[in-house]
């Protein structure tokens, strides 16, 4: 067999020019045009495109640090599970009547299986000779429909989620939890009014956010303890005297100071 330098090939393929195979499509070297050597000319330009892409990607990475939720708590019954965004369309599909309940297999395996199966076998389903989109309207229309459905399902699924509230409910707590000074005069008040929602180490829970790392002044904390927050904590949780409120706020701020150290 002929080897090494001086070998002739069809176009840029590995098909030897000695073998004339009719099944290999017309090569683009037969189309008039300006070809360019991959190495090094084209690769240099490709690096440029890659660099621009990398800069954009790193900007995204730096602007939005990867999120980390709180340590998994299997007993947390209030947590609403959601898959990563690229599975949302499958998740949303299962909410339709024809794809859930008794028809769950249709929604879970039937429809996605049909869609992905068709994608896998596309060259055999769409086996005509024409390559232009208008020469194969059925394939193109099916793809556009599937694409629209996927985008629509993803959108409806994501639009119903309050992402900020979700993130706020699932904050990471430093693993070396703070030593809570239970002898502090404010702790008893915290225990009585706040602990059931905000946790025994102010770490937060299903019903209330963490109180560690909050950026609020003493007055603001006092007001929230009595009047709650808009759309979150109800009013009238803390019903002690002003003096007790001061002790409670002092306790919360002390823990925050400890945490900041």
């Amino acid at each position: 067999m002929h080897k090494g330098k001086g070998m002739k090939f069809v176009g840029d393929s590995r098909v030897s020019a000695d073998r004339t195979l009719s099944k290999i499509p017309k090569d683009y070297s037969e189309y008039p045009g300006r070809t360019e050597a991959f190495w090094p000319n084209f690769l240099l330009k490709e690096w440029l495109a890659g660099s621009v892409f990398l800069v954009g990607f790193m900007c995204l990475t730096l602007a939005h640090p990867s999120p980390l939720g709180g340590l998994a708590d299997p007993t947390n019954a209030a947590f609403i599970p959601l898959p990563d965004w690229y599975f949302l369309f499958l998740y949303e599909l299962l909410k339709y009547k024809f794809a859930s309940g008794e028809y769950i297999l249709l929604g879970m395996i039937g429809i996605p299986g049909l869609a992905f199966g068709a994608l896998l076998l596309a060259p055999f389903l769409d086996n005509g000779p024409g390559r232009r989109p208008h020469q194969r309207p059925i394939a193109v229309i099916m793809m556009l429909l599937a694409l629209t459905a996927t985008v629509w399902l993803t959108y409806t699924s994501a639009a119903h989620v309050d992402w900020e509230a979700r993130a706020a409910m699932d904050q990471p707590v430093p693993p070396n939890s703070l030593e809570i000074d239970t002898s502090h005069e404010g702790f008893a008040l915290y225990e009585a009014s706040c602990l059931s929602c905000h946790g025994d180490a102010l770490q937060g829970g299903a019903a209330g956010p963490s109180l560690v790392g909050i950026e609020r002044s003493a007055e603001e904390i006092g007001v929230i303890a009595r009047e709650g927050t808009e759309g979150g904590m109800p009013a009238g949780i803390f019903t002690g005297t002003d003096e007790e409120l001061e002790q409670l706020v002092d306790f919360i701020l002390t823990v925050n100071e400890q945490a900041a150290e």
Partner: protein
Amino acid sequence: MLQKIYDWIDERVDITPIWRDIADHEVPEHVNPAHHFSAFVYCFGGLTFFVVVIQILSGMFLTMYYVPDIENAWKSVYYLQTEVAHGQIVRGMHHWGASVVIVMLLLHTLRVFFQGAYKKPRELNWMVGVLIFFIMLGLGFTGYLLPWDNKAYFATQVGLQMAEQVPIIGDQLKILLAGDDEIVGAQTLTRFFAIHVFFLPAALFALLAAHFILIRRQGISGPL
């Protein structure tokens, strides 16, 4: 000098065909954005591979700190995120890369589809590409659990419940993935870690190799 080294090696192992496979070929005008800007659509495949390389490299660095065990998994990620120099950036690259790779894969798939580039003789390469897409989704699913935070845990629980509903093999499938028919716990995490770091990447490399060998063998499809 380089030519001498090349000739020395070539004399012994005949590397010209190998070199030709990798780099020595012509890039046709119709895929070159320098000639027709609209040819940037041909960049999607290469950029997908670029993100895959980012994923492999950042993932390798992440395993230097990550501990696949329910006691320490979350803590190791938290430590990586808060204490390790540039840990947040490396994890950020892996986290965002996982999303970007899906987007780029989708764009690449759509480019090939709407140009009808999967038609004879390239049917096999299309199927290999769709399998790569499935592997990527599998990598996304298994990787999502690894930080062991609430959203990871509960999403995986739902995913496993769905696996259980598969007819006939459902129960076995769930046990294979989770390590238990009830508990999503220590075994699930180690299994997902093994799948994410060893099984699926091995399959991915094999399919990528097939994808690239086929494209070099058959060449890029001609202009429409």
